[in-house]
């Protein structure tokens, strides 16, 4: 057996709050983080609600250091806060600090929100009404005046990882992957691989994203991917329910500290759980649809379970991708049923997106944190808002109430637009 990778810290910034225990308790009570959108005036949009992070101030996490990151975009600020929480949770803020070149970062980080008002102003100013076309010269003048360098640079998807490297002096390997909704699960899987191989001893990994801005909502509304239950927003996220009508856009960050076991032991850190398997595949089918057999998801789950040296009989719980879209939930259920066969109905499979909304690139990371907590406490987080069974979704979704369960190995799925499939196996730590 090679180097083992344990989780020694975790932190999150979510629509239900930022405290691990408090948010976990709220999830177990089926509370919803979904409210009318306030980050912009969405009242005329097809979808008027979302799962926003509320009352967030970076100073509350970084103290005076927050001023250094004053220019950071919303997603990067979430990532810095979640990393601070995870770093302290792991006890890495205690002396002696870890060797900086052995600490890396692998994020599934989204791009920063576009500087919308200024971007739009330049676009409208640059439009030539008489000729009904964009006048690039006029636009360039307006854009040079209204857009600013800092806002533009901070939108780059590698900036959250960059801020973390400076703030936590993490000089080791530094990556950002952006494989849509699968990004942070993929990041965690790759970070795990880096530690196993020996290219780092500590990896700060997870994701951060905020697409709750006019163009983000526009993009998903045009795809008809979002729920439009504007009058019933509290219960709008309905994974696996027959009446589901799309996902709910969320935002936030989840960060986990992955650490090589001996490194953790040497400094007296307590392993919370162990990552034991990772599988990643591409559907290679269509950019808009999942392959109807779920073959990509099946292959990713199978690869994760096999790489952990386990079989389907060892898996006690599945944290599903469970978005609440017609297609995802149907095909993910089929994939689980195909892989797990007769055992499928006996494996609880829930979706916390019913309460958090969909954090896009950050979704997999906050969901893996719920898996750590589920193993720790022997309790399964529920799927909220589950009322009407769908004949196409016939698994045990842990509907509407948390449930006790003794867990040794759990599977966490993330599937992204374009056929990106990633699965992780998380196991109870046994020394």
């Amino acid at each position, binding site marked *: 057996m090679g180097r083992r990778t344990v989780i020694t810290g975790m932190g999150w910034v979510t629509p239900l709050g930022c405290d691990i225990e408090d948010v976990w308790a709220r999830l177990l009570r089926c509370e919803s983080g979904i409210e009318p959108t306030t980050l*912009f*005036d969405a*009242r*005329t*949009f097809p979808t008027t609600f979302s799962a926003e992070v509320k009352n967030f101030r970076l100073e509350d996490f970084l103290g005076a250091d927050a001023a250094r990151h004053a220019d950071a975009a919303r997603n990067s600020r979430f990532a810095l806060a979640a990393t601070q929480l995870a770093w302290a949770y792991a006890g890495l803020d205690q002396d002696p600090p870890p060797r900086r*070149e052995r600490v*890396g970062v692998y994020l599934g980080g989204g*791009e920063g929100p576009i500087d919308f008002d200024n971007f*739009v102003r330049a*676009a*409208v100013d*640059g*439009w030539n009404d008489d000729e009904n*076309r*964009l*006048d690039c*010269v*006029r636009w*360039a*003048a307006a*854009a*040079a005046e209204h857009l600013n360098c800092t806002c533009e640079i901070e939108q*780059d*998807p*590698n900036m959250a*990882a*960059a801020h973390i*490297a*400076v703030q936590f*002096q993490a*000089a*080791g*390997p*530094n*990556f*950002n*992957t*952006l*494989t849509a909704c699968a990004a942070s699960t*993929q990041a965690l899987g*790759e970070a795990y*691989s880096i530690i196993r191989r*020996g290219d780092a001893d500590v990896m700060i990994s997870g994701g951060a994203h905020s697409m709750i801005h*006019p163009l983000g909502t*526009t*993009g*998903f509304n*045009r*795809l008809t991917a979002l729920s439009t239950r504007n009058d019933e927003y509290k219960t709008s996220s309905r994974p696996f329910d027959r009446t589901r009508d799309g996902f709910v856009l969320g935002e936030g960050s989840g960060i986990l500290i992955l650490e090589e076991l001996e490194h953790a032991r040497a400094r007296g850190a307590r392993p919370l759980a162990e990552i034991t398997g990772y599988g*990643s*595949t*591409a559907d*290679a089918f269509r*950019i*808009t649809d999942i392959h109807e057999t779920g*073959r990509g998801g099946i*292959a990713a789950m199978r*690869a994760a379970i096999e790489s952990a040296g386990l079989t389907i009989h060892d898996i006690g719980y599945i944290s599903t991708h469970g978005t609440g879209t017609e297609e995802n939930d149907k095909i993910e259920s089929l994939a689980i049923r195909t892989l797990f066969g007769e055992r499928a109905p006996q494996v609880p499979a829930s979706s916390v997106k019913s309460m958090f909304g969909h954090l896009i690139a950050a979704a997999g990371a906050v969901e893996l944190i719920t898996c750590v907590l589920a193993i720790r406490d022997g309790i399964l987080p529920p799927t909220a808002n589950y009322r009407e069974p769908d004949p196409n979704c016939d698994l045990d979704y842990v509907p509407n109430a948390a449930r006790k369960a003794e867990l040794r190995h759990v599977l966490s799925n993330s599937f992204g637009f*374009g*056929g990106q499939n990633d699965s992780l196996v998380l196991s109870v730590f046994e020394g």
Partner: protein
Amino acid sequence: MTGERRVAITGLGTITPLGIGIEPLWEGLMAGRCGLKPIEAFDASGLASRLGGEIPGLKAADYVPKSYRKSVKVMARDIEIAVAAAHAAVRDAGLNTRCLVERGEATGPVNVDPTRFGANIGAGLICADLPELAGALHTAAENGRFSLARWGHEGMNNLTPLWLLKFLPNMLGCHVTIVHDAQAPSNTITCGEASSHLAVGEAYRTIARGAADVCICGGAESKINPMGVLRQQLLNRLATGWDDTPDRACRPFSARRRGIVVSEGGGLLILEEMGHARARRARIYGEVIGFGASANTSSWTQPDPDGAGLAAAIRAALHDAGVSADAIDLVGTFGGGLVGHDASELKALQNALGSRFDGLPAIATKGSLGNAGAGAGALDLAVSVMALAHNTLPPSRNTDDPDPECRLAFATKDPADARIRCLLSVGYALSGGQNAALIIRKYEE
């Protein structure tokens, strides 16, 4: 690392201002050609520099099966470049993928198992197609001002339903994996100009650990669009004042360097498990033997003054390869032509390579190719691999008046013979501080 599988480079696919495929790129550089010119794609005269490196006559429909031609409508330029590069790469490698078989270009039946064929593709922050988006946004204007209420109510309907999917960075990888039927791990690295090297490094690791046998890897990006140029202008990175002499504008490591020239391009390489490559008698350009990555911890926007971050990545790659600096016969530089970044890169090379730095044969491509962002590193790497295969150093444009700190040996005008057994190729993000280094050795059984 002992026990790991060996990884060969068996295909090079590049799409650059010098042409489609690796041959026109190599021949163009050998002949000293420059791909930088005044931008023709849009009227750039209102921007601080009008210069760019544009790929002439690129149509993604020429590189996909007939059944997939409709999909090119949802491809941003970056995606089109990646799709074209993938086609060039698999052809160069002699891989009969689904695409080549369906197009009647294959030399035989499919010869790569789709479930063992992966992708690691670097991508930039893809800029929305400004004329398209502005065309929709202006419909929501009232009295010359944009109305968000009107946009939400009706304006947004002027965007095609699949609009968002044109600009997701992972769509480079998604289209490529669909077209060529690659179902093994597919990753998208978004770390600016470091993306290509990091993606190739990830592909190397993926094959070495056994999660795939073949990976298509590298990166692609187009900065030839109004936002792409403007962002560099706002960052004060454009080489200005050269509009009349574009072939002299981008000057890597030159005493007179003033900035970058934006461009577009993509490079995808085929990495293959050594036994897999041998079994199908593939041409082996070289063997990947080392990879290292690191982060700058001094700033997320400014270059590291002492180059410590990049030096650490180079040292990690040398250590990974189990070779010393003395084994390096060639360095493929990043050499963007920026005052601070080039100085930092020189410091890093000097610190990591010690006495080997002085007179070390080197290549800098950006005087000819400009800065293709996430695609840039793969182009640099492909050119260095060609140099390794041909034992020849192509001339590096505009390196003839070097910074006094630059003691690398570039071929300035004509190609130079060079015995190359082992090369180092470096890449780093201009913003963000990610660094990566790869070491490639001539193939030996």
